């Protein structure tokens, strides 16, 4: 929207103002008219040069014309000269702006010249990419000479996000540059404070082949089992968060609707026997890595289906699970892919986005912050793992991003897991079981894994059920309920309270009982 009013608007208003001023004078001066018309031509040229896409440019041009004739009309009216022709042309300009704006909104064409020249593949062998965010009033053409000098090409990072939907994400570009020139070009762009807001890396990340670990022994539940899933007795974490009692509360309930829990990870094995009946949406229906499938099972595997494990998704009635490949099947991912997955999940109307990934660094990537803010504005509750370095998660993203529920892991004694980062310094800390957690293995089997990655989807699953019962539940209210009905433990100062599904759901269901 910021591009709609610009320098060209000022030029056009002054230009037509001068023309109108001259028209109202008895003593006509051709030079004044010429100057005014020259300014109008300059305004049109400026708009055409800097406009964002066809529809954006036409919309901006129409607004310039509408405002300029309106200003001219005011001048004529002040000089007691008939202004109706200027007002009519002004109305025409505004009408055209509305029409072009609507057309742009409907058709949403790739708005930046040069998109067509972008490479078909995301990264060539000799090229590497990074992310560039332009300033609010800046265009890619302003840095194009520098890009060309460094043999760089560009494409919009998130072409489906319009300026109207999110003016931050719409201004991110993927820049492809020869590997040996990348650092120099990034430095030069960082120095371009006039046109550039952010320059961030977009390196690929490797994920090693998962290794099955020997369990420390199965947790023996003393709780009455409420579901018929054969391996539920091995799920100490489900029991520890009050899963069985929660299932008892949900037994005769019909949710207001199914909640959508998005697993932003390595994809999900959508054919796995314990999740296939609730898998929906998302492009990542396979998972050659296994990490995403494990998380998906924790959040939403079908409970009481006589198969495998349980989650809070009783009979598959409360949650539908979707997968988004933030990390590729080969285990690599980029910042752009992660942000894109968050955007995709948000645009698929995810109620909860579960992110069992992250990194540690002094600067949180702005592209990630913007993508999460975009999802939050669309109503998604974003949950992220706190990280596994046994340090303060203050600099661990995305769990440190504003509004994100940061999940630490606890062990079978409900102590902080030895590896878990602490979340006491963050704004929305919470804890959940994250040691020796049994869940889905891609390909159809089951496997135990440990990590804060396992704790986050446990929280995401509970939030999903809460949204299923109360679809208008805000992220803030949901988090406050997790805390208010969570279990205070010895390490709560470091990891927050441990979630209690039974207490939260009982509180939500009291009015209905």
């Amino acid at each position, binding site marked *: 929207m910021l591009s709609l009013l610009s320098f060209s608007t000022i030029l056009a208003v002054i230009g037509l103002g001068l023309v109108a001023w001259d028209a109202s004078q008895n003593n006509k001066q051709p030079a004044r008219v010429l100057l005014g018309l020259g300014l109008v031509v300059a305004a049109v040229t400026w708009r055409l040069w800097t406009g964002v896409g066809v529809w954006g440019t036409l919309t901006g041009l129409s607004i310039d014309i509408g405002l300029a004739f309106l200003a001219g009309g005011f001048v004529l009216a002040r000089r007691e000269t008939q202004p109706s022709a200027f007002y009519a042309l002004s109305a025409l300009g505004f009408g055209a702006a509305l029409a072009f704006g609507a057309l742009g909104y409907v058709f949403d064409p790739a708005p930046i010249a040069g998109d067509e020249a972008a490479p078909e593949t995301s990264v060539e062998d000799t090229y590497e990419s990074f992310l560039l965010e332009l300033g609010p009033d800046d265009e890619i053409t302003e840095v194009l000479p520098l890009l060309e000098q460094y043999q760089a090409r560009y494409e919009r990072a998130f072409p489906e996000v319009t300026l109207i939907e999110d003016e931050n994400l719409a201004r991110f570009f993927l820049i492809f540059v020869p590997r040996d020139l990348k650092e120099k070009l990034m430095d030069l762009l960082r120095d371009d404070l006039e046109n550039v807001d952010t320059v961030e*890396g977009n*390196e690929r*990340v490797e994920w090693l*082949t998962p290794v*099955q670990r020997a369990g420390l022994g199965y947790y023996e539940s003393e709780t009455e089992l409420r579901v018929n899933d054969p391996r539920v007795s091995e799920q100490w974490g489900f029991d520890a968060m009050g899963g069985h009692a929660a299932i008892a509360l949900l037994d005769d309930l019909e949710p207001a609707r199914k909640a959508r829990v998005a697993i932003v990870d390595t994809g999900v094995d959508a054919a796995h026997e314990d999740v296939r009946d609730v898998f929906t949406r998302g492009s990542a229906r396979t998972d050659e890595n296994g990490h995403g499938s494990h998380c998906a099972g924790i959040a939403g595997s079908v409970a009481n289906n006589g198969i495998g494990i349980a989650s809070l998704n009783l009979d598959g009635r409360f949650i539908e699970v979707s997968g988004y490949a933030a990390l590729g099947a080969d285990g690599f991912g980029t910042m752009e892919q992660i942000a894109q997955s968050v955007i995709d999940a948000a645009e698929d109307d995810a109620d909860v986005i579960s992110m069992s990934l992250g990194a540690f660094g002094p600067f949180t990537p702005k592209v990630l912050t913007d993508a999460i803010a975009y999802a939050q504005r669309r109503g998604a509750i974003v949950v992220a793992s706190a*990280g*596994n*370095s046994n340090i303060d998660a203050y600099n661990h993203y995305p769990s440190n991003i504003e509004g994100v529920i940061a999940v630490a892991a606890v062990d079978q004694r409900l102590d902080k897991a030895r590896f878990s980062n602490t979340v006491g310094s963050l704004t929305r800390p919470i804890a959940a079981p994250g040691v020796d957690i049994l869940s889905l293995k891609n390909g159809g089997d089951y496997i135990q894994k440990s990590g804060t*990655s396992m704790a986050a989807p446990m929280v995401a699953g509970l939030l999903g059920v809460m949204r299923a019962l109360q679809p208008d539940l805000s992220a803030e209210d949901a988090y406050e309920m997790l805390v208010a009905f969570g279990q205070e433990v010895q390490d709560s100062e470091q990891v927050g309270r441990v979630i209690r599904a039974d207490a939260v759901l009982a509180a939500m269901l009291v009015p209905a009982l």
Partner: protein
Amino acid sequence: MQITGTVRYLDLEGGFWGIVAEGGRKLLPIGGVPSHLQRDGQRVRATVEATHVMSTRMWGEPVRVTAIQAH
């Protein structure tokens, strides 16, 4: 940056290899540790560069290893 440290197997997130440098700094090699050095407790000398990446491991500082050998 040149470091010396110890290769460690991290039994997290399915399992992976990291390096704990002298002084306790945890380093997560992008691309992993070469298979012939994948032994818990293996001493190594390496040249690494800090990098800006994300992963499911969420352990240590991600680094790109440009050279590594047993020490």
